[in-house]
């Protein structure tokens, strides 16, 4: 599980979907980096990811990892957001997660991702919901 510091460092991305836009080539990086993988530029401006997108690569996890046992089976997918940036997120609120298909439109909602047992921290982030 994550330490408080590690979780807290990720808030701008997990809570607010903050990204960086390369001043050189316009590529949006999520999470931000020190150098642009596209043009190797070093200057960036702040950007926020849009919350609408489409499913690119779905699957349903039937055998979950530690910390996710109570959620299984759940859908998880690579989603391409409206600005072209892709993220991996769970797809929540599905009666039959197997129905999730490539191309399904989704939007992101703030959700509880995991918690460190009964006494540890709670970690928040975003999940996708089918439109």
């Amino acid at each position, binding site marked *: 599980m994550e330490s408080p510091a590690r979780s807290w460092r990720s808030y701008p991305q997990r809570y607010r979907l903050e990204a960086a836009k390369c001043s050189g080539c316009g590529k949006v990086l999520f999470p931000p980096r020190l150098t642009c993988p596209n043009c190797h530029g070093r200057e960036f401006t702040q950007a926020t990811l849009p919350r609408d997108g489409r499913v690119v*690569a779905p*699957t349903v*996890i039937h055998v979950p*990892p530690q*910390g996710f046992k109570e959620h299984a089976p759940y859908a*998880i997918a690579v989603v391409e957001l409206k600005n072209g940036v*892709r993220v991996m*997120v769970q797809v929540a609120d599905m009666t039959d997660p197997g129905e999730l298909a490539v191309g399904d439109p989704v939007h992101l909602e703030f959700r509880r*991702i*995991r918690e460190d047992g009964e006494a540890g921290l709670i970690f928040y982030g975003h999940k996708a919901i089918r439109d």
Partner: protein
Amino acid sequence: MREVAIIGVGMIDWGELWGKSLREIWAEAALAALDDAGIDRVDLITVGCMSPGLFVGQEHLASLLADEIGMAGVASTRVESACASGSLAFRAGFAEVAAGLSDLVLVTGVEKMTDVDGADATYALGTAADQELEGFHGITFPGLYAMMARVHMAHHGTTSRQLAAVAAKNHANGLLNPHAQYHMRVSIDDVLGSTMVADPLHLLDCSPITDGAAAVVLAPLDKAKDHVGNRTVVKVAGSGLATDTIALANREDLARLRAVELAAERAYVMAGRRPSDIHVAEVHDCFTIAEIMATEALGFFEPGEGGPAAERGLTALGDRLPINPSGGLKSKGHPVGATGVAQIAEITLQLLGKAGQRQVEGARVGLTQNMGGSGGSSTVHILEAV
């Protein structure tokens, strides 16, 4: 650059080796390789091991193991690239001999995965994925490959039956490998009927958790030739290494394994060879879909043709291009750091005509492809009998 030869091979029985520690299984394989090479001293030891820290609480492994076989003082290094650790340990050894830094190198791979429970083993394997972008959201290893499978199926029409055909083939081959973890026949229907792990991958589409080790010995080719005279020697003709993004969200095309394509290109160029020159290959089938995608990335089949090829039996023993005659990760087992070295061992035996019941007739040029995580790294080697 000097030419490099493989002069000894050491393999042990793989499986759930409750009675043996990491040191023991490693030492067994290491000594077997040294004995096979007829030597008792080396200039360098390389150790491929993904996560001794998480699996057995032990780091600083290279030094520990050098001492274990009485070689404290010898140069020793541990190499890691998730499931590609073994082949990277091989490449590290190859590079030193090729560069003239070492003459005799003991290349090893080992992983002891059963001292932790399933959940902890899964966690350790999961560290090969991007923790922030993927692990945080609850992805699993099978989940990552399942996503690639769904995209491959959507692009190319690859079917679950085609995936299952890979598992059936590799289990059939494993029956002929005395060292394999599993000796059982598995049918396509058995695969399709097994529990769903991550849609569309069933339990029998996935490689197992295994304890195991493997080792080979490298020497300069001209010295090896002096030693064996007219007998066949296996040389390392080509070596290629490449990376790709770890996070699937950052990949350009989820139906392709770019790291494998690049590593293969580099190996083919070094060896002066093409895909059609390869007689036999050991490919990284951590999941059935991985073998299909790898065979396409290696240039054996056109994109989208890997599934039909497996279904038609083109990659079975005795057919056009036998893939994973050892049984692959699927039935031989997948002790993560050892796999890459075991692939080299298998192809070496094939090229020397020593593969017993699973011998590929007339094999003179072989290829190994080892891969880390969901394709974030890959190493390809081309070996030739000379």
